[in-house]
């Protein structure tokens, strides 16, 4: 596997099943039926066995944020929890590399597992999972305490991590005195404290209100630039996934449907299920000018040789433009001035295009490598918002 060399964490053919009925042999029977291609509804009804994850293959490269996405019950959290064996796979491997060799988390002995959990893999929980009777300091130092580290050494590390998440002044506070956002920062600091290189985040921001959620997403991205952890992140929010994920994996009914970069997912969904997610995303920060614009090469020509852009006409060399017979200057890059068309880079987001269009009252021109290539007028913007333009760029 070419990806395997850089992967920090790798799931190979992972099946996770839960026996609800405690009947002997139910798991084996369920596996046989799973291999025979039965759906998880059928297996669940016949054997009282829940198929959490089936046949999952995923490699998480060192230093990337890999997002698992799906509706509730799609198995994304179940798969994540296999990475530190809070859920134990029935079949398959969960491999973690130490630079020299692979270790199978699903099958290693308990001592090895505890060592991995203490030193390599940390976790952040949706409901924070903080110990309410402890101070912030003692919560952050929890993992180090479990390792048996002396309190005096612990104190310095804890102070450093609290500084990192901006809670240096709250070390002696109790958890319940903190807001939800601050509590999750404590959860982050606790995960950072063990200096684990792999971070499992199980919908860490879902319990927070939207403003705080966005703020923490930004903070996480900021921290990640410095810390370069390998992060496996579960989310049910497509906007969150597109924003923070360097790779996104979509899951459905326990199976992985598609894995790819945010662009792959947003622009080339493999099926209707994935497309349905994309339809519900917030387009303003995600869609870029390149996907919104009408290309000059697609514009019809007027009898006078100018390109017909509806309200404006553009000279074939794209050096000048006119609107209602009034000649307009073309000003490169964003800054809008009175009586000029503004030009934006192809990576500018739809939200910003709309803002420029609104302030200037004129269409927005798009350039790639110093060359004008297209324009965004009201019709193009509306079309992008409606979703039809989203799969056109590439």
């Amino acid at each position, binding site marked *: 596997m070419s990806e395997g060399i850089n992967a920090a964490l790798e799931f190979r053919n992972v099946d996770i099943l839960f026996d609800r009925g405690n009947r002997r042999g139910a798991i084996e029977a369920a596996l046989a039926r799973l291999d025979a291609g039965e759906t998880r509804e059928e297996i669940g009804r016949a054997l009282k066995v829940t198929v959490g994850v089936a046949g999952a293959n995923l490699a998480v490269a060192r230093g990337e944020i890999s997002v698992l996405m799906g509706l509730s019950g799609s198995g994304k959290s179940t798969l994540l929890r296999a990475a530190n064996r809070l859920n134990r796979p029935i079949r398959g491997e969960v491999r973690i590399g130490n630079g020299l060799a692979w270790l199978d988390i699903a099958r290693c002995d308990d001592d090895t597992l505890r060592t991995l*959990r203490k030193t390599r893999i940390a*976790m952040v*929980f949706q*409901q924070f*999972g*903080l110990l309410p009777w402890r101070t912030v300091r003692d919560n952050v130092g*929890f993992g180090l305490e479990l390792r048996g580290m002396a309190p005096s050494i612990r104190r310095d590390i804890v102070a450093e991590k609290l500084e990192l998440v901006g809670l240096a002044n709250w070390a002696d506070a109790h958890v319940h005195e903190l807001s939800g956002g601050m509590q999750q920062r404590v959860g982050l600091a606790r995960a950072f404290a*063990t200096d684990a290189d792999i971070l499992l985040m199980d919908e860490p921001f879902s319990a927070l209100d939207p403003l705080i959620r966005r703020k923490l997403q930004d903070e996480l991205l900021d921290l990640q630039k410095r810390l370069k952890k390998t992060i496996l992140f579960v989310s049910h929010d497509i906007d969150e996934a597109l924003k923070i994920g360097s790779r996104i994996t979509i899951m459905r009914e326990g199976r992985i449907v598609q894995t790819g970069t945010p662009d792959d997912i947003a622009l080339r969904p493999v099926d209707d299920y994935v497309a349905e997610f994309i339809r519900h995303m917030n387009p303003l920060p995600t869609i870029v000018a390149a996907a919104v614009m009408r290309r000059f090469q697609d514009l019809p020509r007027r009898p006078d040789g100018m390109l017909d852009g509806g309200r404006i006409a553009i000279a074939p060399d794209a050096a000048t433009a006119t609107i209602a017979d009034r000649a307009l200057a073309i000003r490169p890059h964003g800054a809008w001035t009175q009586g000029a068309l503004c030009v934006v880079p192809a990576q500018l987001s739809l939200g910003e295009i709309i803002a420029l269009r609104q302030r200037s009252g004129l269409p927005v021109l798009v350039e790639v490598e110093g060359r004008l290539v297209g324009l965004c007028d009201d019709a193009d913007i509306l079309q992008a918002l409606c979703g039809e333009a989203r799969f056109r760029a590439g």
Partner: protein
Amino acid sequence: MAPEQWIAEHKIPVGAVMAAVVDVVRKHGLGVFDVITDSVGFCADGLTTLLLDLPPLLLVVAAMAGAWFLRRSVGLAALVALGLLFIINQGYWNETMATLSLILFSTVFCMAVGVPLGIACAHRPRLAQALQPLLDLMQTLPTFVYLIPTLILFGLGTVPGMISTIIFAVPAPIRMTQMGIARVPRSLIEAGEAFGATGRQILWKIELPAALPMIQAGLTQCIMLSLSMVVIAALVGAGGLGVPVVRALNTVQVDAGFESGFVIVLLAIMLDRVCRPKDSAS
């Protein structure tokens, strides 16, 4: 012959079986019970003697300081001091000390047995299921019923009273500990597991602190149940505040009955206020 007559004539020997069991235990285990009687009696009576040897006012000051240290409440410290002074005033100091040492002993024993057993029950549902009917029996079987065999096995005195008290009080800490541990949120246990805690670390660093308010409630209940047994303990010869109550009952003395009754209530209130879990538990 009417059917009910037939049923009545073929009596199942429930009572006879129990009597035989007690008899066998008595015959073969007499040495063991003598050792228990002697050692427990020696310790309990020794504690009572020690408490009585100290000057009462010194104990009042110590109790006040203890209440302040545990709860940081001036009102409670004052309540404890005034309550104990009232007991001295009414002339029930000696009986109160005897009751206190009996409660102390049975409570320490109940907690020492109850908390580990409660933890075991919380971790092993099978054990909890098996223990459930026994605990129900211990709490609902009328005390006088098991007073008879304890009397046979341990003779008259402090020890049978204490054994009956323990039988009656020990289900409370077992149940409360079990409930407390079982109610620890799954997410907290998982947080411990995710950071590599061993089973023992999870018990000591997560489960027990999380269950502490419930365990403390179990302690308070245990003390109250022990206290409610003082009169019955007095019937089998244990000293303490039950003795004047029994005497007042036998001689129909309203004044003595109320005096000792009030002292018991006062003791209960003081112990409850000092030991009950703090409100900020949730």
